[in-house]
């Protein structure tokens, strides 16, 4: 390979960008770091404007991370991933055709990467889509589809209540009561909307007006008129299970 090689470094930590740049230029005098990025947001623009042959992408970056950025780059440049520590990632790299460097940088290891890259630059970039897909699923589990936090006004403040803490929700005319061990708050979201958004494994509707967190149930007792009564741990209130829902608590 003769002539200059253009590279771009993306890392959210400024000192680590500077470090990688200085080490690379020492080991590879023909390399020009033509651009630095602190996250992957502008990756498409950078590909088009600088058309680099090489990207060094930190996996963990805010906004658009290294894996997402690599997808955008596609086969338009060679990608080298940079990571501080990630067992899964390293395993995946070892098996795949993609280069990676570990932080803190080891001079000898970096030299190996450089000589490998010099060889590879002759051929087209590898297809990394499959590798990126498997890494994405391993490193960043998909955000939950269920509600995890309840935002409720308490005085002038907006309280953030993790759903695990909620003992039960109960509709109260215009509002819905959110009851926890420590007290209660009112929200506007009606019971039927909550039912769609809460995790059904943990939150059961037991009455037209009530959803209970089954993790906090202390006991269920048969009551009057085919109904049942629920007592809760750490809370004095008793909840009524209406006839339509008592089947949920039938013996196995």
């Amino acid at each position: 390979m003769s002539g200059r090689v253009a590279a771009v470094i993306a890392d959210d930590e400024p000192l680590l960008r500077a470090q990688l740049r200085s080490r690379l230029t020492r080991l590879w005098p023909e390399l020009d770091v033509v651009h630095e990025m602190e996250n992957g947001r502008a990756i498409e623009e950078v590909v088009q404007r600088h058309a680099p042959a090489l990207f060094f992408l930190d996996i963990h970056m805010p906004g658009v991370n290294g894996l997402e950025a690599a997808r955008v780059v596609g086969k338009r440049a060679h990608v080298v991933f940079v990571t501080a520590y990630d067992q899964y990632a390293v395993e995946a790299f070892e098996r795949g055709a993609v280069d990676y460097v570990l932080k803190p940088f080891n001079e000898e290891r970096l030299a190996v990467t450089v000589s490998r890259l010099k060889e590879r630059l002759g051929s087209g970039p590898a297809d990394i889509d499959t590798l990126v897909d498997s890494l994405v699923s391993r490193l960043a589990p998909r955000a939950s589809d269920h509600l995890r936090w309840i935002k409720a006004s308490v005085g002038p403040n907006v309280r953030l209540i993790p759903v695990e803490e909620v003992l039960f929700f109960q509709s109260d005319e215009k509002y819905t009561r959110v009851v926890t061990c420590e007290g209660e708050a009112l929200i506007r979201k009606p019971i039927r909307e909550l039912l769609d958004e809460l995790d059904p494994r943990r939150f059961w509707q037991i009455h037209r007006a009530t959803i209970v967190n089954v993790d906090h149930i202390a006991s269920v007792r048969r009551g009057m008129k085919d109904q049942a009564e629920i007592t809760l741990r750490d809370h004095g209130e008793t909840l009524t299970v209406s006839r339509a829902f008592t089947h949920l608590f039938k013996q196995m």
Partner: protein
Amino acid sequence: MGLGVGIGCVVVAGLMLRERVARDQARLLQAEAERHRLEKNFLEARLQLMQAQVEPHFLFNTLANVQHLVETDPAAAGRMLQSLIDYLRAALPQMRESTTSLGREIDMARAFLEINRVRMGARLDFAIDVPEPLKCRPFPPMMLISLVENAVKHGVDPCCECGSITIRAAEEDGKLKVSVADTGEGIRPKKGGGVGLANIRERLKTLYGTAARLVLEENAPRGVVASIEVPASS
């Protein structure tokens, strides 16, 4: 007739007695179960405290920064190493003490924030506003740092813009209230990340019953304020 009523009364009284015995027994069993649950919680909370780890990702990234500073700015490298040592001294499970003071927990949080300020450059700013006399107060270990880690990891870091973190402490109505406020991303309703918080809640309950609590609120104009309230004992 009179005899009939008499027998009836005795039968009713007998039934009532049996029911009361059964009720008492049920209550006893319930109390027993509750005691077992609390003991189990206590052990679990202790275990979680012991198992809380220094994240390898944090450690290696910090060392990579130090490695660079050694070459470019040795004085800054020395300061960063000192912060890392201060942090590790408190954070490594083997070094951890079961009781600690607020001051010690603040020092650990400061060391952690200093490290992150170097790493994140201009993106992170922080302030600590804790009155001197409160620093000698007892405070449970590893709770403040957990809130500060959340503020960095889930608050400021995911934001591409800069953010700040403020630690405050005050004594109000017989409570020691310690809060960590960030101006970061805030909480999206479906975002996870409550494990550390659930752990703090569990430990507070074990240590103080209902006399302590952890409250999370939205910060204005953005971000989160997390506060821990424990009974104030001087």
